[in-house]
């Protein structure tokens, strides 16, 4: 499927050489990439189905440079796409033909480890894992742990409000972010939050920019809190003969007030793929497998494990292994962690979807996915952050077979529509980006979207920062200001899409 992006601005395309010259004057040597071949490295992010070469890539190293670049681009009417490590699965860092990419890779220093206040001040290009490593010797860790944590950066985590398998207990990025420095598209620098848990009466712009997918500003510094490592951890590996029983077990654990450190589910296809890939010792005769990690004080973990074990048996578990041994627990996890790679061996390509549903609708949505799999004639493997209802159906396809990518995308869109129809959302942690952009109106009506776009106008009135992402239609801010929407209906319901 060809992705419709905003029509490129001819003046920006024509002005490429002059722009590159101006950026080169502005920045130290080596901070501007304009060679067509070198630009290839930036032509896509983790959503590799779409590629585009930008006008240029800039690699700033200081806040002042970021501000100067944005001010320059504002003055010249050039669009800017911010980029962390480029691991986005939704195309958030997909370049624009008439824009530059601002790659934050050189913002790679941890500025302060404040053990007394249990926080870290870091530049946005620091990887997620490096934050935890910086305080590991002191018995602390950074909570959100997306599966790309070796590579993904904290700046990108802020942009996408990244979660991970432990976010059920330890929160998402937004719950762990204390402060940020943000540069607006016009070059203005603002500081949000600090080392305190609350502000004192200002709007929570820190909360607003978290998950804003690079549309509101460029983060140049973050302050995150770090948490004490749990004293003990145990894990249960629970097999079920049918998905519904597994779903009922998840609901019962939650209902009992237990907050696991992680609670993951895999379907039969995912179990078999993982076992074939790294032999974690999963039972192969079950329809669904739950991995439940319970962590906390020494005095609490055994009690919680006994409680979950009893719940699982009552829910009809057909196999149950439990361990308090670190190596075995990590082995339980290994299969889940490798699930995406394992599925990669089943198929040349796959699309990873990311809807969230109310947990009680799990069995129903998996039945729907199974039916859609038949309709679209493509296989689908399900891994699932069961504790918080976040589904990751992996749709298997072969990009070399004409039409398969289109079918895979249509299948994915149908899954997300089904998620919204049962009271869920389009994206739990990967963001809307370009991937789910055109589905936004299944969740939001015209008024909802107009309000969100007015927020964008408050930060970036000319719409030059990462346009074409998140919102299915672009409006001029002046037009949004005049817009009167009633009952969710615009006066001009068929505004063109790009």
């Amino acid at each position: 499927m060809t992705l419709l992006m905003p029509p490129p601005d001819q003046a920006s395309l024509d002005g490429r050489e002059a722009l590159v010259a101006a950026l080169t004057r502005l920045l130290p040597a080596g901070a501007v990439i304009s060679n067509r071949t070198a630009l290839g490295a930036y032509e896509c992010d983790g959503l590799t189905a779409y590629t585009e070469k930008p006008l240029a890539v800039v690699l700033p190293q200081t806040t002042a440079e970021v501000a100067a670049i944005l001010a320059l681009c504002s003055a010249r009417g050039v669009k800017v796409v911010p980029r962390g490590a480029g691991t986005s699965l939704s195309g958030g860092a997909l370049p624009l033909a008439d824009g530059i990419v601002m790659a934050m890779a050189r913002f790679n220093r941890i500025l302060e480890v404040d053990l007394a206040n249990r926080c870290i001040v870091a530049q946005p290009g620091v990887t997620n894992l490096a934050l935890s490593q910086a305080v590991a010797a002191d018995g602390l860790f950074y909570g959100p742990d997306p599966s790309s944590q070796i590579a993904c950066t904290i700046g990108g985590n802020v942009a996408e409000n990244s979660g991970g398998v432990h976010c059920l207990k330890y929160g998402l990025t937004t719950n762990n972010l204390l402060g940020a420095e943000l540069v607006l598209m016009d070059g203005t620098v603002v500081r949000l939050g600090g080392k305190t848990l609350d502000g004192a009466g200002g709007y929570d712009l820190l909360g607003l920019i978290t998950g804003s997918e690079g549309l509101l500003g460029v983060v140049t510094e973050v302050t995150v809190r770090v948490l004490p490592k749990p004293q003990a951890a145990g894990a249960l590996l629970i097999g079920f003969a049918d998905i519904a029983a597994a779903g009922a077990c998840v609901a019962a654990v939650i209902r009992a007030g237990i907050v696991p450190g992680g609670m993951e589910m895999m379907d039969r296809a995912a179990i078999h793929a993982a076992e074939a890939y790294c032999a974690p010792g999963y039972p192969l005769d079950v329809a669904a497998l739950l991995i439940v990690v319970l962590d906390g004080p020494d005095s609490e973990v055994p009690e919680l494990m006994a409680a979950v074990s009893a719940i699982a048996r009552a829910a009809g578990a057909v196999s149950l292994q439990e361990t308090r041994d670190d190596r075995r627990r990590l082995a339980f996890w290994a299969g889940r962690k490798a699930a995406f790679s394992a599925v990669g061996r089943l198929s040349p390509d796959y699309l990873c979807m990311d809807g969230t549903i109310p947990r009680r609708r799990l069995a129903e949505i998996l039945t729907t996915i199974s039916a859609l799999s038949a309709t679209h004639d493509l296989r689908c493997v399900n891994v699932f952050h069961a504790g918080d209802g976040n589904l990751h159906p992996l749709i298997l396809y072969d990009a070399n077979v004409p039409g398969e990518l289109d079918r895979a995308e249509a299948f994915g869109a149908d899954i997300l529509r089904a998620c919204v129809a049962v009271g869920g959302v389009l994206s739990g942690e990967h963001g809307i980006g370009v991937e789910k952009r055109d589905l936004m109106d299944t969740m939001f009506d015209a008024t909802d979207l107009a309000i969100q776009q007015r927020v964008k106008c408050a930060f970036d009135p000319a719409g030059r920062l990462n346009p074409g992402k998140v919102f299915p239609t672009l409006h001029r801010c002046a037009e949004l200001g005049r817009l009167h929407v009633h009952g969710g209906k615009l006066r001009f319901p068929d505004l063109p899409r790009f």
Partner: protein
Amino acid sequence: MVPTTEAQLSDAVAAAAAGGHRCHVTGRATKTGYGRPVEADAILDLSGLSGIRDYQPDELVVRLGPGTPLAELEAALAEHGQCLAFEPPDLGPLYGEAAGQGSIGGAIACNLSGPRRPRFGAARDHLLGFAAVSGRGELFKAGGQVVKNVSGYDLPKLLAGSFGTLGCLAEVTLRVAGRPAGEATLVVGGCDEIRAVDLLNRLAGGPLEPTGLAYLPAVVAVHAPHPLTASAAVMRFEGPPGSVAARLLHLQAELAGEGALETLEGPASAELWAALRDVASLLPGGARQIWRVVLPPAAGGRVAAALDAALPGCQWLLDWGGGLLWLAIPPKPGAAAELVRAVAGRHGGRATLMRAALELRRTVPVFEPEEPALDALSLRVKRAFDPQGVLNPGRLRAEW
């Protein structure tokens, strides 16, 4: 105006905007003294949008009208062994109102939180989605009904703590939590604030998962519901009763040399933390100014000591392991504001004048002033939702 449906609310705001009116938006009007005085010619009372609309204990999610009394919500949750993890305080009595009258909408609009804040967050962290009416009279929604959601801007974070200046809440969806089966508190008596904050932070950085870490100087501790005879560092643990007991035992051994140890079990512990949450022990003593100062936690003891020395007759307590200072001082003109903010600011903190006479709240910045660029950005955000300044004008900033 007391709308009882979303459509009525939307019509009321649209009519106010068309007629050039300005609305004082309230939930159950128990915290009208929180913030700058609103300059309005109409009252928009959301108490008619009341009641629980959907509660799914298995999902840990509840959807309800913003005017629902907090007490009603908490009672409904308690029936299923659940609670609001952010432990919203009852600030009514701080403003001279009766206890137990506040609404959930008010708790969200003020982004309230209690002693569990460091561990479980504030109202902002529990608001999953909402419907609201903008200053243009448009009914809109944002967020969702699920915990994990990156679909569009996180407007729930923005609306929480916006004091009704961006939109009138019409419906809110919250995440709820299991109510801990047991609780107990360890009291370490007789230590000063510097040593206490060190101790509390040692605990906060350790693996025992405390859910409350506070310090009360002797003059304040004697007003606690379970009267304490000396200054007290207090540490709460919640969870399965066996685990609570084991952790307490462990800590008692570890802190044997730190001071006089005392244990508060079950209801005695709950009462103490409810009083801390509501700042009840600072309320006796008449019309004192009350400040709420947020701090990097390790600075709590030093800031308290500095303010104690500089403000004769003041009383204070520390919550959040030192990250939150509540301060009551005898009525004073503006100078106290500058002093409090200067001391807090030196340590990376920020201060809100929670309670003061109307005239003072008109002249002294109630909320921490922001840098000009941030203030300008905040105003643009305000205008995006409410271009004519219909909703709660003056409450956050004198200019808007």
